[in-house]
């Protein structure tokens, strides 16, 4: 399939989203300037807080009812921490999380209780996230028990039904997690998450620990429950292709901040932030006949979130960086040429079209040296 055809189909889906929003315009979840700083202890002679890992450092976004919002970025960008903040597994250092109009960022246990059943989480590691001493039945029934919910027909019948929904044999009700493969365990995790018919599921790398052929099974299952049960998802993953497949909107994070957020089509086909562009260019494509895009090779790794660069955090690896980038932090706004809802935090954004193959950008010194050498020899 060519790119242009592909664009049309994705555009159609993307345009459906704003309509949905109009119907129920208040976002389900609103995140404003969310921060999570993990203190670093040290010092002499008395140990004290001497710094902080700024894992999440001022993140704002909305999640609408029934939509899947993808959160991508490389390790250390804060996407998993964000997920844990949304489910209040971590206490935010700063900022607000508003769920259905209620501020849950500072809510206590009691106030959270009714909301806990509406926001569920699916974890990366299907081996570590299930209690090995509990049967599958009691794992899945757990959330119902805690929240005192008695479905018609009883909990056991409901669990069997859930097992069926996630593609497991209801007869396996009394088995233990170790009797299942990794993919099956992740299905159990999904059954537990949907048991209370939540409004929002935060899925943190739900398939990255699984084999390729199993990944697809679980992605399809998540997509099925998302569509059939109308559950909103925050889908956290490092695999850009899977995020694109799953999410209608996607946010790209870098060093604790969202650098770009847009609907899927706009983000993947017309990225404005140089980092997003570099990410897209770095994904190896299994289609060897795909239109060759410009090759962008950044230098080095992501800097430390303990002392992130001033101004724009990406500037130390960016080929467009100028003096302004070091002094002024670019706001996350819609920049000219972008589609509505496409927000970018960049002073010198990329062109709104990347249809043509641009010039290669090789910042990596080793690659540049080796390629110069072979170029000179040739």
């Amino acid at each position, binding site marked *: 399939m060519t790119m242009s055809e*592909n664009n049309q*189909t994705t555009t159609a889906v993307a345009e459906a989203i704003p309509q949905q929003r109009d119907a129920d315009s208040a976002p389900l979840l609103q995140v404003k300037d969310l921060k999570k700083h993990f203190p670093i202890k040290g010092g002499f002679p008395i140990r004290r807080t001497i710094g902080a890992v700024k894992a999440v450092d001022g993140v704002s976004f909305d999640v609408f009812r029934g939509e899947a919002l993808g959160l991508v970025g*490389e390790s250390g960008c804060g996407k998993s921490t964000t997920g844990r903040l949304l489910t209040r597994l971590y206490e935010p250092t700063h900022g607000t999380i508003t769920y259905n109009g209620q501020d849950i960022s500072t809510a206590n246990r009691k106030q959270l209780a009714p909301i806990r059943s509406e926001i569920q989480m699916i974890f990366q590691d299907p081996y570590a996230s299930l209690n090995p001493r509990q049967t599958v039945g009691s794992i899945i029934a757990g959330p119902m028990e805690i929240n005192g919910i008695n479905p018609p027909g009883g909990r056991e019948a409901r669990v069997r039904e859930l097992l069926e929904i996630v593609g497991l044999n209801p007869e396996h009700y009394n088995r233990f997690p170790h009797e299942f493969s990794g993919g099956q365990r992740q299905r159990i995790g999904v059954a537990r998450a949907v048991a209370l018919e939540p409004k929002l599921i935060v899925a943190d790398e739900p398939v990255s620990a699984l*084999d390729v052929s199993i990944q697809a*099974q679980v992605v399809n299952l998540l997509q099925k429950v998302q569509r059939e049960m109308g559950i909103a998802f925050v889908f956290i993953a490092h695999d850009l292709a899977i995020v694109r497949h799953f999410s209608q909107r996607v946010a790209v994070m870098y060093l604790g901040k969202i650098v770009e957020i847009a609907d899927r089509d706009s983000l993947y086909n017309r990225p404005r932030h140089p980092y997003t562009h570099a990410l897209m260019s770095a994904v190896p494509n299994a289609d*060897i006949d*795909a239109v060759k895009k410009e090759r962008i090779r950044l230098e080095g*790794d992501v800097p430390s979130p303990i002392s992130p660069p001033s101004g724009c955090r990406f500037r130390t690896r960016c080929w467009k960086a100028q003096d302004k980038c070091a002094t002024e932090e670019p706001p996350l706004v819609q920049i000219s040429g972008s589609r509505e809802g496409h927000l970018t935090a960049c002073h010198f954004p990329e062109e709104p079209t990347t249809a043509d193959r641009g010039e290669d950008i090789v910042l990596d*010194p080793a690659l540049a040296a080796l390629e110069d050498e072979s170029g000179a020899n040739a």
Partner: protein
Amino acid sequence: MTTLTKTEDAPAPTGGDAFLSVRDLKVQFSTEDGIVKAVDGLSFDIERGKTLGIVGESGSGKSVTNLTVLGLHNRKSTHVEGEILLEGKELITATEPELEKLRGNKMAMIFQDSLTALSPYYTVGRQISEPFRKHTGASKKEARDRAIQMLEKVGIPHPKQRVDDYPHQFSGGMRQRAMIAMSLVCNPDLLIADEPTTALDVTVQAQILDLLKDLQQEFGSAIIMITHDLGVVANMADDLLVMYAGRAVERGSVREVLKSPEHPYTWGLLGSMPRLNSDVDEPLLPIPGSPPSLLNPPSGCPFHPRCAFTDKVEGGKCKGDRPTLPVGRGSACHLTADQKQQVFIETIQPRLG
């Protein structure tokens, strides 16, 4: 493409261009639960300067194969049959001292996780220079200079200072570069890269893959690239071997295998992985079920319990007969060539986008 002209069943004498030849390799471990047939009749060849991609999921035998090539399997509990010929030298029967002279020198390995594969107790420089001293007899000073030179080559900034750092002082990407430097320090002819970028972020992965390609140009090594990521092999490899349950189920050039795959398992792999340009409204095409236990692999074709096309094969052959992988380009499947082509074009290809 790499010549794959030897027949599967009759091991031909080596020669031709093949630099490494594996013939009907069988690797079995005895465990408490029984005998694990980790590799079961695998053959392949690789030429100097070329890259062979080996694709498969966990338990497909891809990593075991390569440990066996290096002779790093546990000799007590492992039974190995077949032939592994490196420049005509038989490695399975080679003695440990003979293998030690080859490892790190003629053939080297890049491990998946540089954090565990580099010792935390010794400096990066020491770990790079160790094999150089051992294989070339260089002095400490020469080996250190060589280590600095290699670090520079793989793009470590300030190599003269960083050579004395410990691995934990390097970032993930830099550690993987250091490991590449360590594997290339003696100019090996064969480089085995076992999921070299799986633990890395995507922008770093792109740097490392390009680096490997560029270094291969310079060093002329043959590379065996083990991965589960078809995107990585599409980028790196000349030829491709798809493994399932310890057996090769399909092989050919990268273009042949990715563009006109023949084996239902390869179809499944392609259908399971979304691409950046695939149609998002089409659900993925997963392979049902899970990979088989190698303690007790299915009879006949090991893929038959997960295969959607067994009813197209007459006489229940999929359950009873093990299909053979033909010479050269081909797949180990009972479907006829026409059926394979027809199924792929009609049902698989349209959904891949």
